[in-house]
């Protein structure tokens, strides 16, 4: 079994190499001399569809660049940028202090803002809640619609899983420092699954990215304000978060040009067309 153990050790080490820390990776492919320059973009599934549109638009302008966008979640996005396994990481939330502490070299580029809407099923007859009530609903302090002036019925809270950027942002903005989302909540691992669950389950309420709003669920007013890009920009609607791109150090070459394109007029026009808020 000695040989077996040795092989196990070698195999284990090989696997561990995948978990390299801040800045240890090979860096990006920008130094390539010939062929198209590749930019790898990894992270938040909320930013992903927007990033894909922005990459298509940029590739049309500069055919020498090939941008590959893949998901994994905000934390994976920050991690990938930190260890340089990707050129750019995506995060649909603020970067945590612990993440900048782990890798002080990372640079954050906010490309858009995204609102988070509270949605309920069409069977719910409550249309307007206050911020405090929203916090109480999602922390489990309010459990029946009659406490909010609606017809009596159990409130079914639907939430994203722990670690989701949308959940982290929502917890911070609506529940505050202390409260946590009730453990009775149904957890679904994506915006789409959350929406499907809310549209079906009786008395259900959840939060989803503006990009996923449609007729299958009913958006809730907060303090009398409907969630929309317009009400966020006027400052009336309070629940929104930045969509970020993260790079290791200041970006160079094609990655820098793409980020400039996104922050420029053409990129921000795409951001607005998709229902997100431009940076300025």
């Amino acid at each position, binding site marked *: 079994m000695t040989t077996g153990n040795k092989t196990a050790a070698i195999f284990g080490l090989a696997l561990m190499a995948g978990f390299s820390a801040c800045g240890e990776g090979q860096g990006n492919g920008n130094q390539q001399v010939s062929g198209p320059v590749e930019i790898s973009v990894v992270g938040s599934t909320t930013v992903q569809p927007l990033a894909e549109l922005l990459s298509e638009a940029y590739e049309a302008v500069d055919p020498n660049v090939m941008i590959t966008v893949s998901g994994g979640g905000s934390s994976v996005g920050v991690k990938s940028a930190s260890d340089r396994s990707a050129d750019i990481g995506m995060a649909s939330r603020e970067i945590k202090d612990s993440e900048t502490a782990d890798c002080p070299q990372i640079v954050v580029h906010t490309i858009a803002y995204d609102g988070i809407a509270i949605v309920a099923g069409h069977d719910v007859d409550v249309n307007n809640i206050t911020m405090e009530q929203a916090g109480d609903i999602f922390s489990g302090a309010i459990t029946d619609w009659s406490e909010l002036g609606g017809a009596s019925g159990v409130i079914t809270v639907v939430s994203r899983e722990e670690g989701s950027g949308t959940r982290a942002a929502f917890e911070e903005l609506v529940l505050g420092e202390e409260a946590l989302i009730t453990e009775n*909540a149904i957890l679904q691992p994506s915006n789409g699954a959350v929406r499907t669950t809310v549209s*079906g389950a009786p008395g259900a309420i959840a939060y989803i990215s503006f990009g996923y709003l449609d007729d299958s669920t009913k958006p809730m007013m907060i303090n009398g304000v409907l969630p929309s890009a317009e009400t966020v920009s006027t400052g009336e609607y309070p629940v929104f978060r930045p969509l970020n791109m993260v790079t290791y150090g200041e970006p160079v070459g094609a990655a820098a040009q793409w980020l400039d394109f996104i922050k420029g007029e053409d990129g921000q026009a795409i951001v607005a067309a998709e229902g997100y808020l431009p940076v300025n």
Partner: protein
Amino acid sequence: MTSGSRHYGARTGMENTMKTVLLISALASVLIVLLIFVFTMKEAMPAFREIGIREMLSGRVWRPGNDQFGILAMIAGSGLVTLGAVALGVPLALGTAIFLSEIAPRWISGIVRPSLELLAGIPSVVYGLFGMVVLVPLVRAIPAPGNVGFGLLSASIVLAVMVLPTIANVSEFAIRSVPKGFREGSMALGATKWETIARVIVPAARPGIISAVVLGLGRALGETIAMIMVIGNSVVIPAALNGNPLTIFLSRARTLTGNIAVEISYATGVHESALFATGVVLFILIMLVNTSARYLLQSSISRGGK
């Protein structure tokens, strides 16, 4: 040395090479299991050290953001959903197996058997989708406070259908392997067909049927994506919704596999390690099931031999 013995020498050389090749293939699976266990264990060690094995196994609260890593709720969830799947799936699978091997005319088994194979070939995400849009609304119609359809019952039904082909196929094979003499002897003694099946054939096939059920158990414990889609994923210890204890199956839950799959893409540090620890617990659970199956199988064979 005659030419005959040289030929013989070449043959033994070939024999030995083949033996070694086959030995290596056989050892590969042992090695892979070992590697996976060692690696998972290694990644789980920080969690076991920082949180404590007992705290993890008995902790009721899982809040990684708050550094609370109890997996008792997930152990209960996995256990109950597997129990439910076995309770629903085993009678159905045994019925299918007995029907196919003892009763079915050729043309009916010509329809049933391919259907079973097709059932086994459906990807689990499709089962999950079906459960989510068809089963969950049906279960939701059961009147009980707080019943939203997502929960153990929906998950158990989906899982029962998923393990049906495995249990039915292996049981059918076990029943077919019962020597013809058993049937003829029983009939000759005046037993009816049903008496023969219930008293002679099924008991004789018991070791095979037990291993069929255990294979199903293993598959049930390991199922992931279909469970995530219908079980609700709430980290709560399932409890009855009203006075009727059966309503525990309307409760939401999370499985050990679901815990890993839902959170691994976000996890870092102790959280990530705690998910590997969840994997270790799952690994040991499945090992326990398999070992007890082997024990049951042996004791039932030795009893049968008496």
